[in-house]
C-alpha cells in the first residue's frame, strides 16, 4: 500500500467534515471518492496534498508520514476542477514555472516540456495564454503540469466536471494512458458515478464525512451496502419500493421485465434512447423505472414482474443492506 490514510478527523468550525477516515490506495490503483457535494471528498484530497492539515490521523506515502510535511515538499501531482493555470503565463511558462523552482538544467527542462506537450497534442499551443485555449486544451495543460511534477501520488479533483460529455469521453482514455495504472496511486474525486465506474479500480462512496462503502464498481453495483449507495451507483437509479414490514425492497430498472402474467400498471412517461428505452410506470407498489430494449413494443397498460433473486433488501430505519438468502452471491 503506498497511500495510507488512518483515522483522519477534520473539522471546520462546528462542522465535522471527516470522521475517522481510513483509506488505502495501492501502487497503480485508482480509487474514486464519490459523493454529493459537501460529503468531504475534496477535503480528503486537500489533506493528502497538504493544502489543509488534519486535526488527527496519519497520512503515509510509501510508508513515510506526511502530516507534517508542507505541501510544497510533498510531491503530489494535482489536477484542479478549475485547472488553476496561471492566466498571465503562456502554456510553456505555466509548465516551466514549477520545473524552474525545483531546479535542474535548462536543457532537461526544455526536453521534458517538449515531450509532454507532444504526448498531449499541445505542441502548437505552447505560446498561447490559457484564455486562448479551449476547455479541453486547458484541461490537458493541467494534466501536463501534474505529469511534470514527478509525483508520488496523483490527486484529481473533479478534473472533467467543466467539460461537456463528448470531451469527457475523449479524455478518459488519455487519463488512463498517462496517469492511471502507472507507478503511482491515483485518487480521483468526482460526483459523477459514470466517470467513477469508467475509471476507478475501486470506488469509495462518501456521505457526511464517512466512507459508506468501498469496493470495485461491480461489488457496489451488485451489492450496495445501503439505500444511499444503491441510489448513487447505476443509472437509471435503483427503484426503492416503500417499506413493508420494516424492509425496503430495491430493484434495478434493468431487472424489471414486461410480463403478461405480471402485475398491471400504467405508463407515466417514456424516454427512448435508441438502444434502449426507459419507462416510468405506476403499479400497486409504487412508481417504478423500467429499462428495456429500444425495439420492444409497449402496450398502453403493460404488465410487469421481476425475479425475486434480483431483489435488494434494506432495513427501513437504518437504510443498511439486509442479508438475503435469495441472492446466491450474498
Amino acid at each position, binding site marked *: 500500500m503506498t497511500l495510507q490514510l488512518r483515522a483522519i478527523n477534520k473539522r471546520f468550525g462546528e462542522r465535522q467534515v471527516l470522521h475517522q477516515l481510513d483509506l488505502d490506495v495501492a501502487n497503480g490503483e485508482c480509487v474514486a471518492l464519490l459523493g454529493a457535494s459537501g460529503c468531504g471528498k475534496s477535503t480528503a484530497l*486537500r489533506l493528502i*496534498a*497538504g*493544502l489543509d492539515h488534519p486535526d488527527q490521523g496519519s497520512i503515509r506515502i510509501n510508508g513515510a508520514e506526511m502530516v507534517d510535511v*508542507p*505541501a*510544497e*515538499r*510533498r510531491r*503530489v*501531482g*494535482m489536477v*484542479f476542477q*478549475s485547472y*488553476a*493555470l*496561471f*492566466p*498571465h503565463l503562456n502554456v510553456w511558462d505555466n509548465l516551466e*514555472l*514549477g520545473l524552474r*523552482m*525545483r531546479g535542474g538544467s535548462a536543457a532537461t527542462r526544455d526536453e521534458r516540456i517538449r515531450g509532454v506537450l507532444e504526448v498531449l497534442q499541445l505542441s502548437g499551443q505552447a505560446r498561447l*495564454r490559457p*484564455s486562448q485555449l479551449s476547455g479541453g486544451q486547458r484541461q490537458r495543460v493541467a494534466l501536463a*503540469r501534474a505529469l511534470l*511534477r514527478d509525483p508520488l501520488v496523483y490527486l484529481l479533483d473533479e478534473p472533467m466536471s467543466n467539460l461537456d460529455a463528448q470531451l469527457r469521453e475523449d479524455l478518459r482514455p488519455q487519463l488512463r494512458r498517462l496517469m492511471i495504472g502507472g507507478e503511482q496511486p491515483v485518487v480521483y474525486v468526482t460526483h459523477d458515478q459514470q466517470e467513477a465506474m469508467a475509471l476507478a479500480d475501486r470506488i469509495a462512496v462518501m456521505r457526511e464525512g464517512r466512507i459508506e462503502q468501498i469496493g470495485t464498481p461491480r461489488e457496489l453495483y451488485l451489492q450496495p451496502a445501503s439505500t444511499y449507495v444503491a441510489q448513487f451507483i447505476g443509472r437509471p437509479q435503483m427503484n426503492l419500493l416503500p417499506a413493508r414490514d420494516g424492509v425496503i425492497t430495491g430493484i434495478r430498472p434493468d431487472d424489471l421485465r414486461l410480463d403478461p402474467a405480471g402485475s398491471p400498471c400504467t405508463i407515466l412517461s417514456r424516454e427512448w434512447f435508441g438502444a434502449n428505452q426507459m419507462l416510468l410506470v405506476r403499479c400497486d407498489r409504487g412508481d417504478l423505472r423500467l429499462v428495456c430494449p429500444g425495439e420492444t413494443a409497449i402496450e398502453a397498460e403493460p404488465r410487469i414482474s421481476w425475479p425475486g433473486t434480483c431483489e435488494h433488501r434494506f432495513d427501513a430505519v437504518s437504510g443498511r443492506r439486509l442479508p438475503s438468502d435469495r441472492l446466491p452471491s450474498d
Partner: protein
Amino acid sequence: MTMLLAAPALLLIAVVFGWPMLRYAWLSFHADSVLTGLEPVANGGANWLRLAADQRFWLDAGQTARFALISVSLELLLALAIALLLHQRWRGRGAVRALTLLPWALPTTMMALGWRWIFNTPYGPIEVLARSLGLGSLDLLSTPSITWLVTVFADVWKTTPFITLILLAGLQSIPEDLYSAFRLEGGTPLQALRRVTLPLLLPYILLSLLFRLAQAFGVFDLVQVLTGGGPAGSTESIALYAYLNGMRFLDFGYSATVMLAGFLLLTAMILAGTLLLKSVGLLRPLDR
C-alpha cells in the same frame, strides 16, 4: 444601434466635459479681466506666451508633480502592504477593514483643518511634544523645505485607504486554487507573492495609479485649507494658481490657460508613463 444606445452617455460627457474644455481652450486665446471690463477680447496667443515665460507657473508645475509622484508612490506601497495584511484571515479583520476606510470617508476640508491644528505653531500637539522633548520649535507649517512634506503626509493619510480598497478587491479576484497549485509546484509564499500575486494585481495597481495621479495632480482643497499655498508659495499647486488668477486677480483668460496647461501636462505625463511601462514589458500581462 450601438451608437444610438451609447448616445445619452456620450451626450452627457460632451456637455459636462467636452463643452467646458472647449470653452477653456477658447478663453485661453482671449483677454478676459478687469482691464477688458470682464468681456473676452481676442488677444492671439498672448496668454500662452505669458505662460511660457511665467516662472511662478513652472515652479508650481514642478511642485505639483513632486507632490503627486511622491504621495502616490508612498500611498501605493503602504496600500499594498495593508491590503496584503487585510487579505489574510485573522480575528477582527472585518472591523479593521472598516476602520481603515475611515480617513477616506472624511471630507478633505475637515481633515485638512484637523491637520492644520495638529501641526500648528505654537499650540499644536506636535509642536508641544517637540518642545517638551527639547527639540525646540519645528515650525512645520512655515518652513518651505518641510511644509510640502506635511501636505504629502496629509494626502497619504487620507487616500491610502482608497488604493487599499482597490488592491484588496484585486487580491480577492485571484482564485485560491492558483495559490494551491503554486504551492504544489514547490513554490514558497514569498515566491507566490512575486510570481502570482503581483502580476495578477498589476491591472489594479495601474488603475489606482491612474486615478490617484490624475487626482493628486489637480490637488486644490487640501493645499488651500492646510497651507493656503504657502509658505512663500512652496506648496502652491497648478490648480491653486489657476484659482488665484481667476478668483483673486479676476483674470479669467489667463486662469483658463493655466488650467488647460495643467491638464495637458497631466495627459502628457500619463502617456509617457504608459509608453515607459509598455517598453519594459510591464503591461504584457494585461493583453489577454
